[in-house]
């Protein structure tokens, strides 16, 4: 197969995170139209479609086939990915690979999700329960926060971190998220708001959790030669993926306070991009709980192990700090439709590189994003940059 030019981002389309009473179809069509307009591309240019498999409660099944008919699109690749929170990212990476090897020229990557239509005490919990070991863990009554609560508890214990200090990561991300017009929230939080909120799974409280919501994003990828965008070319410079031999909290060799999949996926992505971590200007990780952002900061090598919380307290991860983390708000500050969140991180990266981000970091040339599933068992890493 002939290798073609590196993939570039031609256009983006989003709806603000929130609650929508219209079908997923209509959200999808809206962001697709917006992305095409942003890219100055005709729909007929699209020859590949990539999306996370809709969640079990989505009324419309066979979603990609349904959408291809509706759009009148003949494509050379149509992919629905189901890998939990990395689904959108793995769909995006599949599109990147297909453009790199010439399978398609212009890829539509799309994610749409409505969490407002699922009862969180019924079908949602049933779906979550089945993601644990159905024989040895589900009968306990496990929840996702109950998994992350244990790694938070262990992280505080191993490094002697005060629970109070962790709240600063939530406060920082919420402040960034409030400034984001696509975010879910209008009000910032104080440290006391975070610490006084109702308990979800000790020691995790409400605002330590990413708020489920509805959302949709479309991203058009194409070759540099086909890219007719008015903006400077934004390249997908490197991608990486790694899954450790772990399942939620079950890890054999490493502590649950380490996330080796982040380290390995990021190493691959930066190596492919030909950059090092100090050359990255902005980080947009998928960090669903505050201690996970702290540990990701450590896994990136930005600080020593156990110092991720201090980095936030000292303002190092703030928009004006030396290594800004989640200036978009991330899933904690922006709201969290999990299938869409990886693409929201990509949109945040693109906006930083275009100079149009809600919380813009000056002179951005490279952005690194991650996505994860399970208890960060599997991780994608993606480097975006403006250099051709």
């Amino acid at each position, binding site marked *: 197969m002939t290798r073609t030019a590196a993939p570039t981002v031609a256009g983006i389309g989003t709806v603000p995170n929130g609650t929508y009473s219209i079908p997923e179809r209509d959200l999808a069509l809206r962001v697709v139209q917006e992305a095409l307009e942003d890219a100055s591309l005709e729909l007929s240019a699209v020859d590949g479609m990539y999306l996370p498999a809709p969640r079990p409660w989505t009324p419309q099944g066979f979603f990609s086939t349904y959408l291809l008919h509706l759009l009148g699109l003949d494509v050379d690749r149509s992919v629905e990915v189901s890998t939990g929170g990395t689904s959108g990212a793995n769909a995006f990476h599949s599109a990147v690979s297909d453009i790199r090897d010439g399978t398609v020229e212009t890829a539509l990557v799309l994610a749409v999700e409505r969490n407002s239509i699922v009862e969180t*005490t019924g079908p949602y919990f049933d779906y979550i329960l089945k993601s644990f070991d159905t024989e040895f863990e589900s*009968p306990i009554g496990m929840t996702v926060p109950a998994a992350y609560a244990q790694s938070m508890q262990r992280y505080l*214990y191993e490094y002697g971190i005060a629970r109070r200090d962790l709240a600063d990561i939530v406060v920082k991300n919420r402040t960034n998220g409030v400034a984001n017009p696509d975010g879910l929230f209008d009000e910032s939080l104080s440290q006391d708001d975070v610490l006084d909120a109702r*308990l*979800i799974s*000790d020691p995790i409280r409400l605002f330590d959790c990413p708020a489920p919501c509805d959302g949709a994003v479309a991203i058009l990828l194409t070759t540099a030669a086909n890219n007719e965008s008015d903006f400077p070319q934004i390249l997908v410079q490197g991608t990486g993926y790694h899954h450790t031999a772990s399942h939620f909290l079950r890890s*054999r060799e490493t502590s649950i306070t380490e996330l080796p999949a982040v380290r390995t996926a990021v190493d691959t992505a930066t190596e492919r991009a030909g950059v090092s971590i100090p050359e990255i200007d902005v980080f947009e990780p998928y960090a669903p709980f505050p201690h996970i952002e702290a540990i990701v900061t450590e896994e990136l090598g930005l600080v020593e192990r156990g110092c991720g919380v201090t980095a936030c307290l000292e303002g190092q991860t703030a928009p004006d700090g030396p290594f800004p983390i989640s200036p978009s708000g991330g899933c904690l500050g922006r709201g969290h439709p999990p299938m869409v969140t990886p693409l929201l991180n990509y949109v945040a990266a693109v906006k930083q590189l275009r100079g149009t981000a809600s919380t813009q970091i000056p002179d951005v040339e490279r952005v690194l994003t991650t996505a994860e599933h399970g208890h960060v068992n599997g991780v994608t890493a993606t480097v975006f940059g403006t250099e051709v």
Partner: protein
Amino acid sequence: MEPYTRPFWESLRDGTFLIHACESCDERFFPPSPICPHCHSTDVDWSETDGVGTLYSFTRTHATAEPFDNELVIGTVELADGPKLLAPIDASYSSLEIGDDVRIMSREYDVDYDRGWLDTYPFFVARPVTN
């Protein structure tokens, strides 16, 4: 074919907690599987454990799926024999600390949750060991 894990549940009925031992690399592991996750040998066998271990971490839930109590105390136990596993903890949340000595024991399963073919078998629980 029989479910591979049936001997575990049959033994648990008699109060014995089984894990797996690899004859090739000598590692102990859980859950049981015919392939050693450490060296990929198939030379594996059941191994009895006294269930003694320490509390590696723990939490208390406040919202769960419908058949369960909202407040559940759940922890990760690191067995003295090696493997770590999730278990319900038979103790109040406030009484627990990481590093506490605990022991995994058999307990009747009384939640109205569909465990399929395991519905007539007991489950297990971790209880603090008092010296």
